[in-house]
């Protein structure tokens, strides 16, 4: 009944990965994701997985956190696997009722699963080691060249940062409202699709109303603290790239290329 969420959660630790420049981490994650899509065989994925494992160890993040990031998507991952297993044409290795599992299907399925798991793990590691503000600072800084053509990079970054800040608050609030309505005899898990949608009204309506109220309060609090958009704003954190940052980016690219070539 309760919703758990690990994506977008920052784990403040003091590690060499945490200390890396967030821009570099963001770029390196993007690069890894691109390579994940290019790679087409297991050896490449294995190499990337080893790289990921190394990073997790260096980051001091308990591996369980990465797993928690995967868990909500487990159903989706399994579904993809079985879809590939049963829909790919090729040598039949087993048959169950009208479903035929093929060798090629097994291979494709496992590749897709590896791809998903790596994708999610890399991005989870990014959000666990960068605070939302660092992440959005990095995004804003990387997008800033686009400002000249009128792209609202500051506004987008600010919106993202606030969204991430309020994820835990909203998750807690949703759980509380669900419990409150269940305590009033509401059924939220039974009935057909139409009924279920109707059953969501007592949860979604208060959630929207409370969220608007929060947004109102927050806007006022920001105004009181002299927020007036990105113009003339400074940042507490100054990001300067060190040798370690360049080294990390270099290693990431090399590992990526190696895993494609292997």
């Amino acid at each position, binding site marked *: 009944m309760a919703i758990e969420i690990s994506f977008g959660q920052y784990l403040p630790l003091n590690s060499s990965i945490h200390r890396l420049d967030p821009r570099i981490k963001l770029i390196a994650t993007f690069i890894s994701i691109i390579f994940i899509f290019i790679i087409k065989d297991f050896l490449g994925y294995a190499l990337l997985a080893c790289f990921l494992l190394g990073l997790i160890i260096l980051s001091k993040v*308990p591996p*369980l956190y990465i797993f928690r990031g995967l868990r909500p998507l487990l159903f989706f991952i399994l579904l993809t696997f079985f879809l590939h297993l049963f829909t790919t044409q090729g040598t039949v290795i087993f048959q169950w009722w009208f479903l035929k599992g093929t060798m090629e299907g097994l291979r494709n399925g496992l590749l897709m699963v590896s791809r998903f798991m790596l994708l999610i793990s890399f991005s989870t590691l990014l959000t666990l080691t960068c605070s939302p503000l660092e992440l959005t600072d990095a995004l804003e800084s990387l997008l800033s060249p686009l400002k000249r053509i009128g792209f609202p990079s500051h506004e987008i970054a600010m919106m993202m940062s606030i969204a991430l800040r309020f994820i835990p608050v909203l998750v807690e609030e949703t759980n*509380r409202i669900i419990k*409150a309505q269940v*305590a*009033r*005899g509401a059924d939220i898990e039974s009935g057909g699709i139409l009924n279920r949608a109707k059953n969501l*009204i007592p949860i979604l309506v208060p959630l929207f*109303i*409370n969220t608007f109220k929060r947004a109102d309060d927050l806007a006022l609090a920001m105004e009181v603290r002299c927020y007036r958009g990105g113009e003339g704003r400074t940042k507490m954190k100054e990001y300067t790239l060190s040798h370690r940052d360049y080294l990390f980016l270099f290693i990431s690219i090399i590992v990526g290329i190696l895993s494609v070539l292997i």
Partner: protein
Amino acid sequence: MPSLIELRDVWYQYNPNSPLSYWALKGINLKIERGEFISIIGPTGSGKSTLIQHFNGLLKPTKGEVIVDGIEISKTKDLKSIRKKVGMVFQYPETQIFSETIYDELAFGLRNYGYSEDEIREKVEEVTKKLGIDYIPLDKSPFLLSGGEMRRIAIASILAMEPEVFVLDEPLANLDPKGRKELLKEIDYLNRKESLTVIIVSHDLSEVSRYADRIIVLFDGTIIMDGSPREIFKNVEKLLEISLGVPQIVELLYTLHKKGADIPYNILNIDEAVKTIVKWRKSLGNRDKLRTISTS
């Protein structure tokens, strides 16, 4: 007849098998009888909210048994009927309001339990009288009401289901003194006149202790005190140590006691404090007089 609610060695763990796991309840034994007015007190994080969610099966114990009116909640399939018996009002209940009219909001629970529209109308009208909100037209939108009125509507929506026990989590939070007093009086009335069992959760002893006939103090997932307000106030030192709001008059008499005054400090209201202090001053006066006589 079995107790209304009984907990036998109840343990509850959040986030089992995760780096964030912790025990919120550690071996709770508790019996709640019909007609009691209980206040569950404890600092933030002591497990109060976790505890009350066991009363209606929103949470099930990791270890131990919760028995509501003879039915064990971990074994029954029919939690819905337990949730009707145990009416639960969450913190800031006005934030769960969703209906277009006050009537629909009050009827929501009753509709979930399949009452006929005639019965619902009757019960809705009755509950608005009980909580002193019958002056508000029922076809009005609940969102146009004041904060205090919205709180009452939300509380009434639970009460309309005619629970046997009424559990309220911090029902007074954020209300002004007048609103707090009125609400407490109405809940007290329901307890005395309609023999509704009431459980109020709070982190402040000062207000609720005037009405509750039993106080349960929770600390770090265990019950550290359970008794009448007068018994509880004997342990003022401990209450102050764990930063619970203690009535100032109790704190005052306790401080005087510590400084050598031979007075009780487990008092319940200002009049008792007045009597205690006057009596103590008189005894001091007599002693002073005796001393003057003996020295002269």
